[in-house]
């Protein structure tokens, strides 16, 4: 049953007949100032306009110390050639103390990497029960093993995953062949060199050069050897043959065949959709699947990508963000390896045309049983205000509310103080930071402080949060599919590691249940084929489901 959305329309004066913007239930409040988060992003710029500067960075939301509270890890840029810096910037880990207070534990944790940070993925690659962190940098990448005591150790060299000092992008942990440990997909952006760099101008102002002027690179796939080391299998797995300007990626079982596939958003060129044949060998089918281009055959400048079942039909859809004068695209999964670009029909691109869009989440912010859209915006040309007032460098983020009938309405105007913030956002991540049952937002802003948005939505529905714990499969349950059934409502989700714009979030799964007070059935299909079913589950709780503890099928 679909609960009717709480939308109030008001009129401007007694003579007005035009409906004003809908005032809806979702409210995101900017709570950055009182959070204790003092991080400030730098892109390492010095007026040389290296393209590297524009794409930093993502962030991660995860529980690094297993205390039940989601912590925040911000990636940072680093001084580029010509930048004078007295203090080397570093990534920052903030421990969640509860009550929206955070403590900088970077030093103590050892996670303060000073490389040029771009993308991040979190997963328990060694299956020891804690979250490890992989950083995709400009320069050598880094794998941090969680020591289980709140500290991390750089194990990159041992693991063999530095990925050759390239200009990276997103990264994902996934189990490509269902052997119970996490493999690693590393996206690469482009071949950058200081020697070949050239400054561009737009309207007489210095500007960043388009990525098309740099050679695209193939991504990399590492197989976990199960002994703390990885092997580069990019060529044999069918990945290395495809060079692209990789940006955000997400790994998901789009075809419901039980293995994990890979969606790579490419800047200025066709996106890749790698279909897993079940044994860790991939076939690129983006063109035939309809996800390579927009509906009219244009290659978007893809930035971030998320997946989720926005229309509750049991199949994962993809949402891709893009550049100015392009709508951020929603690909609806039509099954049979085919997607329909429904951006126009659904309104899922609402408000994005004059924006450059980056981070993205398909999230049910008001727990009303359907997933809304959050899109982080901000131009990459820092001089754009001087030559194009249709857009701006600092932009407001966008919130699109799902109407439950396959359509979206732009509710940014009434979405709370968090949506009045105008900065140049990049990565965005979504999790329940205060454990109150709704999903909050953290946004990394280029050259600025981040924004923490508390979900203060009114008229909230019931909810269920699920944390998976693999036994035979990987410990975090990454790639596992969960189906929640309550009456005639059926919702699906998967655990993903690495998603959105080069970020990580959602190790916990979130289900908005509306008026449902009891879940009839929770089914977990683990990577590797195992299945658990849990019946008569109470709502409004965080549930940890351990592999093998439910009824098998």
């Amino acid at each position, binding site marked *: 049953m679909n609960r009717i959305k709480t939308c109030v329309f008001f009129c401007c004066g007694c003579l007005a007949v035009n409906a004003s913007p809908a005032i809806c239930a979702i409210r995101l409040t900017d709570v950055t100032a009182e959070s204790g988060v003092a991080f400030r992003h730098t892109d390492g710029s010095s007026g040389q306009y290296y393209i590297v500067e524009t794409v930093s960075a993502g962030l991660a939301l995860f529980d690094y110390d297993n205390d039940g509270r989601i912590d925040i890890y911000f990636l940072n840029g680093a001084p580029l050639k010509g930048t004078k810096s007295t203090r080397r910037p570093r990534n920052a880990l903030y421990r969640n103390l509860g009550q929206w207070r955070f403590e900088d534990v970077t030093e103590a944790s050892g996670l303060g990497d000073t490389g040029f940070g771009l993308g991040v993925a979190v997963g328990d690659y060694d299956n020891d029960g804690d979250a490890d962190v992989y950083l995709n940098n400009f320069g050598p990448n880094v794998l941090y093993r969680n020591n289980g005591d709140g500290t991390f150790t750089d194990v990159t060299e041992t693991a063999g995953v530095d990925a050759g000092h390239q200009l990276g992008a997103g990264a994902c942990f996934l189990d490509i062949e269902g052997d119970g440990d996490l493999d690693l997909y590393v996206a690469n952006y482009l071949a950058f060199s200081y020697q070949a760099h050239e400054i561009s101008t737009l*309207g007489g102002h210095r500007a960043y050069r388009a990525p098309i002027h740099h050679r695209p690179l193939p991504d990399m796939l590492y197989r976990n050897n199960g002994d703390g080391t990885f092997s580069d299998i990019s060529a044999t797995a069918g990945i290395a043959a495809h060079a692209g300007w990789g940006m955000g990626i997400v790994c998901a079982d789009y075809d419901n065949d039980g293995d994990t596939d890979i969606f790579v958003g490419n800047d200025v060129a066709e996106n890749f959709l790698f279909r897993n044949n079940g044994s860790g060998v991939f076939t690129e089918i983006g063109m035939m699947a*309809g996800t390579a281009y927009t509906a009219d055959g244009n290659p978007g400048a893809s930035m971030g990508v998320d997946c989720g079942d926005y229309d509750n039909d049991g199949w994962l859809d993809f949402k891709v963000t893009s550049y100015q004068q392009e709508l951020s695209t929603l690909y609806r999964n039509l099954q049979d390896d085919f997607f329909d670009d429904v951006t126009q029909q659904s309104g899922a691109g609402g408000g994005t045309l004059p924006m450059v869009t980056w981070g993205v989440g398909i999230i049910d912010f008001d727990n009303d049983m359907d997933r809304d859209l959050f899109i982080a915006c901000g131009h990459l040309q820092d001089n754009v205000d001087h030559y194009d007032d249709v857009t701006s460098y600092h932009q407001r983020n966008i919130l699109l509310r799902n109407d439950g009938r396959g359509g979206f309405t732009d509710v940014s105007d009434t979405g709370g103080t968090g949506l009045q913030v105008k900065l140049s956002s990049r990565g965005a991540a979504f999790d329940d930071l205060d454990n109150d049952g709704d999903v909050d937002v953290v946004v990394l802003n280029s050259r600025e402080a981040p924004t923490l948005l508390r979900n203060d939505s009114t008229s909230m529905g019931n909810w269920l949060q699920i944390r998976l714990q693999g036994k035979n499969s990987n410990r975090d349950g990454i790639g596992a599919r969960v189906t929640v059934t309550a009456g005639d409502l059926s919702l699906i989700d998967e655990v993903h590691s690495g998603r959105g714009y080069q970020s990580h979030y959602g190790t916990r799964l979130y289900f908005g249940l509306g008026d449902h007070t009891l879940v009839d059935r929770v089914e977990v299909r683990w990577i590797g084929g195992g299945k658990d079913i849990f019946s008569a589950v109470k709502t409004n709780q965080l549930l940890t489901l351990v592999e093998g503890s439910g009824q098998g099928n």
Partner: protein
Amino acid sequence: MPTRTDRPKVSLIKSVGITLALLILGTAVLLLWTRGAAEPETARKPLAPRIEPPLISLELDGLSAETQTGLLRETAAQLAHRLVMAFPRTAEAHMLQGNTFRQLGQSAQALACWQEALALAPRRPDAYTYMAILAEEKGESAQALAHWEKVLALEPDHAGVRDSLAHTLMGLNRRDAAIEFLREELTLSPRSARTHYLLGQAHLREKRFPEAIDYFEKTLVLDPNFSQATYELATALVRSGRSQEAQLYRDKFQKRNKRQKKKDLYGFTAQDDLRKAKQSLASLATAAAGLYQAAGRNLTGLALLEEAVALDPENLERRKRLAARYQALGRPQEALGQCERIADLQPNDATCQMLIGSLNLQLGRHRQAESAFQRMVSLAPGQAYGYRELARLHLTTNNNLKQARTWAQQAVTLEPSAPNYYVLGLVYHRMGDASAALQALQQALQKDPGNQAYQESYRQMSLDRKHESN
């Protein structure tokens, strides 16, 4: 009435007459060549020795591309402002200022200017078109729709307006209304690939796949290189369960797209930005020149046009326009200079060679004129015009009349028109073959009986013949 003893004098008169005819013809072609850049009546008035401050004053030497671009943009803003100050009641001036603001990325000011232009001249579809495009860029589809509706009301028969309107309607999810407009458009432009494509797109979004396939296929018949139609046809085929056929179109699309990508590798450098700024200012200066000329301020107009050509030296249309201005203002030497520059840039332009020939002839440079006409004939051997001009030239110089006859005959063979017969007649006459001359003149008069020059020549030749037979 001339007598036999007067013949040399008659020949001289004829020579002068032919030269004048050539000049008039050359000027006419020059004006035609500039495609509608015909001079207003006021421009033909004698030049007033009026000293005006230059409207564009730029010193770019030694500056970086970045600084030059900035200066050019500033200059464009200043010029647009001065235009509005000089012509406050002229809608075109406000339109130009609006377009300049738009190019400078100041859309709010652009909008105000276009609205001001509409206040002065409410029936300007171009103002509504610009406003519609701006609204589209901002994602304000409802506003764009209102503007397109205005354009349509003002220009109901203008091809393509309904396409734009339908595109906006589709953005508003009003696909059935879009289809109605597109069908109307098809009655105006039945061979428009874009209209067929948009119809395919609307039907595809409506999940009417057979109709979508039909329209996309028609699009590709009309324009086989319409890559978006290729892509969407594949989509419609997949949705209809015809995946194998779809694969063919997707492959075709992919190949084309790769080629396109390679092409896109060029551009977007500081030099490109500078070139764009120069071209924008040159366009504005050209339009401004038109306004000043129309107001009788020829020197200002000419100076602006000269500046425009200097800013964008490879724009041939503008150079042709400047050549026409020089010619109209009685400055053939400068007109010739422009034509020669055009010929350097476009050596295979036969019309340009013809003009160079005519202008050289006007300046008494017969050798250069002949060389240009020869070049014209080699570039366009199937066109009668060059042969006729060569024949005329030899008539003027009274040199190698045998060759002149061959050319005149060739002109008549290629195009048996009245002017060609006329020139052939003159050649025969000069060679003393009165019978052939009269025959040719008769042919000319048959084709253009009211032409006074032909009548007069015929009368003269008949008299001459009488004298001879007496």
